[in-house]
């Protein structure tokens, strides 16, 4: 018997290989191109190529009146249009020192939390689909459809929802809104349990998510992660609690956070967030007061004083902030959007190195990015 010895294969090229993922890859959730440097199937380095959807929203804002800017925000993060609209109108209201009627505040919170549910459902659906769980996709879209019908009745649009105005709301709740939302909230926990039976103990799901894309709390803070990715790493920080806006201070809810900072923990955090959102909605529905929906002193011509203001809210993706510089005219000098997806995506490189190509798909899913917001 001949002894087995090391055989070198000079004819086989063992160099690292560059693989382009996207921009038309379904699991990059939009037009994101990731150039992967691979050693076999292991990622040794990667580079994100973004900007395919850049339309210069910040530049356009400098050339529009304050009321005209608002609809642009529904189109940055189009999955969470309500949250984005809220962030914009709140920034301008704070810069104007405008008080909002209580009814408008509660309605805004209900709608924003419904929007968080629909955003998280879309995340769950696509994230599970990327990993191979097709049923969850269909089930989560079933519930999302109900939410979109509520939005359609309220805003007249399913995706680019826009009912918040500087100073309050354009539309009051339609007849039967409270009943519909209550009905949805009553059925929703059962649905969440259904998703969890499909995933929580599923061997494929566990092997694809546990220990994948680990990021420690310190590293997450250094790279600027916010929202569920930060909380998944064990940092208990949520702007709704840390700096309450609207009427969040009057509502009871908990901040879920993970331990290990892996994809599975971020999944658990978002699932629990949906339960907490439901809790907030039910409380807000109960407390919803009567009264006007527009501030009586809401100005017709919006002219914030000379100065600057930074305001941020907890969007479903993370901290969505707006930095406004005003020169006292009807158009902003500078309106900077702090996009959570943009900053969260930056962590992709750090989280993916050492993992397999297939795990990059899971990590992009767990970061929950929206390219419309990244590219602006």
């Amino acid at each position, binding site marked *: 018997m001949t002894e087995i010895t090391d055989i070198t294969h000079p004819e086989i090229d063992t160099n690292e290989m560059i693989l382009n993922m996207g921009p038309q890859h379904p699991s990059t959730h939009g037009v994101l191109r990731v150039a992967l440097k691979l050693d076999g199937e292991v990622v040794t380095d990667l580079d994100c190529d*973004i*900007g395919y959807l*850049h339309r*210069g929203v*910040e*530049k*356009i804002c400098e*050339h*529009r*009146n304050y009321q*005209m800017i608002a609809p642009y925000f529904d189109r940055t993060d189009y999955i969470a249009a309500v949250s984005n609209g809220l962030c914009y109108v709140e920034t301008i209201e*704070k*810069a104007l020192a405008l008080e909002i009627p209580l009814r408008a505040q509660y309605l805004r919170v209900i709608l924003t939390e419904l929007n968080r549910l629909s955003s998280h459902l879309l995340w769950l659906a696509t994230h599970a689909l990327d990993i191979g769980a097709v049923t969850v996709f269909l089930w989560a879209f079933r519930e999302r459809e109900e939410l979109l019908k509520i939005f359609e009745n309220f805003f007249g649009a399913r995706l680019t929802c826009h009912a918040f105005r500087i100073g309050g709301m354009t539309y009051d709740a339609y007849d039967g809104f409270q009943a519909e939302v209550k009905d949805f909230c009553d059925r929703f926990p059962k649905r969440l349990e259904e998703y969890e039976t499909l995933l929580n103990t599923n061997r494929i799901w566990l092997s694809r998510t546990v220990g994948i894309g680990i990021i420690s709390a310190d*590293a997450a*803070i*250094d*790279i*600027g992660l916010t929202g569920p990715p930060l909380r998944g790493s064990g*940092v208990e*920080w949520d702007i709704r609690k*840390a*700096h309450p806006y609207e009427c969040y201070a009057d509502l009871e809810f908990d901040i879920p956070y993970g331990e290990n900072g892996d994809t599975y923990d971020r999944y658990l955090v978002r699932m629990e967030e949906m339960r907490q959102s439901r809790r907030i909605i039910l409380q807000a529905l109960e407390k919803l007061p009567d009264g006007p929906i527009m501030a009586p002193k809401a100005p017709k011509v919006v*002219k*914030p*004083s*000379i*100065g*600057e*203001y*930074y305001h*941020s809210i907890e969007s479903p993706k993370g*901290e969505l*902030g707006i*930095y406004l*510089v*005003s*020169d*006292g*005219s009807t*158009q902003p*000098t*500078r309106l*900077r959007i*702090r996009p959570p997806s*943009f*900053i969260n995506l*930056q962590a992709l490189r*750090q989280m993916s190195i050492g993992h397999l190509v297939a795990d990059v798909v899971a990590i992009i899913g767990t970061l929950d990015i929206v390219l419309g917001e990244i*590219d*602006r």
Partner: protein
Amino acid sequence: MAEEDNKPQEINPIAKSASETPVKKLPRRAAGAMPVVEIKDDLLIKALQEKFGKTILSANEINSQQVLQIEKAALATVLLYLRDNATPAFNMLTDLTAVHFPDQPDQPFEMVYQLYSIAAKRRLRIKTRLAENETIQTVTSIWGTANWLEREVYDLFGIRFDEHPDLRRILLPTGWVGHPLRKEYKLEYQDNAWVEENLQIRALPTEGDFTGKFE
């Protein structure tokens, strides 16, 4: 009827000069300013002023948000101090951006750093001014967040960062001429040469008024 309605409006220079023009010609800075209060009794700000002296040009509360204006040369040391040794320690860089003020030709650019302390739930804004073509020290070694944010500022404003590990355009394609968020860059401008070469699309006409400014 319609003609009669229109005529008096067109030929009525007196009414125009008396009622309309004063409203339209209001100076752009006629509106009031947001409340600005100098910060006095704040331990952190005091410690900074003692340590860094005159490099901290001003410490104000604008609209009840703390804003420090500091000298460009001291920026990196102040930020490093704020991250490591200050109480509270600002462990997070929330945002980094720039603003262009072409009406202040000496130092038309302002860099804005939004710091955050998760433990103390406190925000602090650091600002510094830059002249045209002046570079600034990168803060990527202090916060990893700054990498893409500085690339974005370079892409959209053309401000260069010294010792940045990877200073490339991020949103616009490589080879594009111009930096869109500068005020002199018109709203509907595009790099025609780039578009024709790379997208094989006939370019927009360069003549005509494409400012897009809404009046």
